[in-house]
């Protein structure tokens, strides 16, 4: 089964609840090397997205993603707002008009999303940002479907890669974002944006368990 419009809505709902659950955790990560707002920002953004649910319930996947992106842009602020806003807007461009997504569609959407984030934030892998979680998640996902794995397996591997990417940020010295101001002191802490990216991708793996 490909990923349906309803599956996408279920994913968005799952993101909102996992970010609400992890609001304090993300904020604590951000307090250590940033300004203690990542959890509150993401939670505020996805709460606003949930308020938009009625108006996107019957829309195509592209419109859903674009609405999510626009809502994040106008409610999250900080670095997270434009980055996650762009991520969903770009995914929305790739899925415009679609009522369902194949494994390949998701590869393309995710690739566009990651490219959007990189274009906006100009971070490279190793800079200690969300890019460190998103980059391996995309490449592992693409590899898995190239191997012919079903979507839900590819997604699981992708989420696992995001988790590893997230953890790989711990020893890094930040070169981008607010953590870079700390210099050497940023090492030894997990990046909050990489963490929220893992939570978001893992929510997809959990929600689309039955997709292929």
């Amino acid at each position, binding site marked *: 089964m490909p990923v349906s419009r309803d599956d996408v809505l279920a994913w968005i709902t799952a993101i909102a609840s996992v970010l609400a659950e992890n609001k304090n955790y993300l*904020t604590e990560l951000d*307090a*250590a*090397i*940033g*300004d*203690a*707002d990542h959890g*509150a*920002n993401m939670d*505020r953004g996805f709460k606003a997205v949930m308020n938009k649910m009625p108006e996107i319930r019957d829309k195509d996947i592209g419109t859903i993603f674009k609405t999510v992106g626009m809502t994040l*842009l*106008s*409610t*999250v*602020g*900080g*670095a*997270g*707002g*434009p*980055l996650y806003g762009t991520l969903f807007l770009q995914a929305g461009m790739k899925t415009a008009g679609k009522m369902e997504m194949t494994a390949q569609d998701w590869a393309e959407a995710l690739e566009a999303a990651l490219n959007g984030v990189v274009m*906006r*934030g100009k971070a490279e892998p190793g800079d200690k940002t969300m890019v460190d979680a998103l980059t391996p998640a995309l490449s592992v996902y693409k590899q898995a479907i190239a191997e012919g794995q079903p979507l839900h397996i590819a997604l699981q591997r992708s989420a696992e890669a995001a988790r590893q990417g997230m953890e790989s940020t711990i020893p890094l010295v930040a*070169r*981008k*974002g*607010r953590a*870079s*101001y*700390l*210099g050497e*002191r940023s090492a030894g802490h997990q990046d909050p944006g990489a963490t929220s990216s893992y939570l978001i991708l893992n929510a997809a793996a959990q929600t689309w368990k039955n997709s292929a």
Partner: protein
Amino acid sequence: MKKLINKPEDVVREELEGIAYAHSDLVKVHFDPNFIVRADAPVQGKVAVISGGGSGHEPMHGGFVGMGMLDAACPGAVFTSPTPDQMLEATKAVNGGAGVLHIVKNYTGDIMNFEMAADLARAEGIEVEAVVIDDDVAVKDSLYTAGRRGVGTTVLAEKLCGAAAEQRRSLKEVADVCRKAKELGRSMGMALTSCTVPHVGKPTFDLPEDQMEIGIGIHGEPGRTRLPLKSADEIVEMLMEPIVSDLPYKAGDEVLLFVNGMGGTPLIELYIVYRKAYEIATKHGLKVVRNLIGSYITSLEMAGTSITLLKMDDDFLKLWDAPVKTPGLRWGV
């Protein structure tokens, strides 16, 4: 958490309501999206100067809206850059046909949100220039990093650009004033205590009674180094040396010396800081011809200080002395 607030999620809205009640002669407050514009906006034929950033830095930026300084300010959530739609709406509200200058502090979030807003405004036919202030010498700069933070010089740049715009200089000329301020201003800050972001409810970092953070920004983030607490004079030396050695100053140059409180520091201490900063500047042969002393760019209730030096010339002196009438800075009118 000890604060004079109601619910954390209402802090920014209620603050803006307070500003609206208090300063209706000077500014108009717009809600959803949130922005503050000067009462007579848009001023036809004048370049409009806008800034914005997270809340929690009061009086910056909202307190600097008014004649001779900002045309608009966009407050984000506490310590969170405002969103592009806020900036776009504010840009449209103050555009008087002569273009709009965005004064941006160098933070990834601010840069990205302002860039998107500028793109959107340009798409609507408004001429927009953006200048990014990055004056914090505590941060090592390099091609591969986010660069230096924008701190104290921002306040001074807003005053100078506001005055230049009142003189009806062109957008390019007002932006040039801002770029010059960016080139000639340097800052560094320190914290005696952390601050508490309202929705977090506890201090961003723990700082023992006998320790301080040197090289902090304005978002309650830890600084570059944690050191044992020192005397005011020693602290001022630690802040002044990197500033003076970073700037291409030479003996005889004229400067503005800005001693800023982080929000929880009383004025009595700022004068003790100013005393030593003035003596160090003078020792280096710098002539302190103007100053600003007070809590103008803050981190909620953080105790601490930052020092900014800005090299002055005749044009900057005239722009600095020009009348300004805002809730947070006022003279000459």
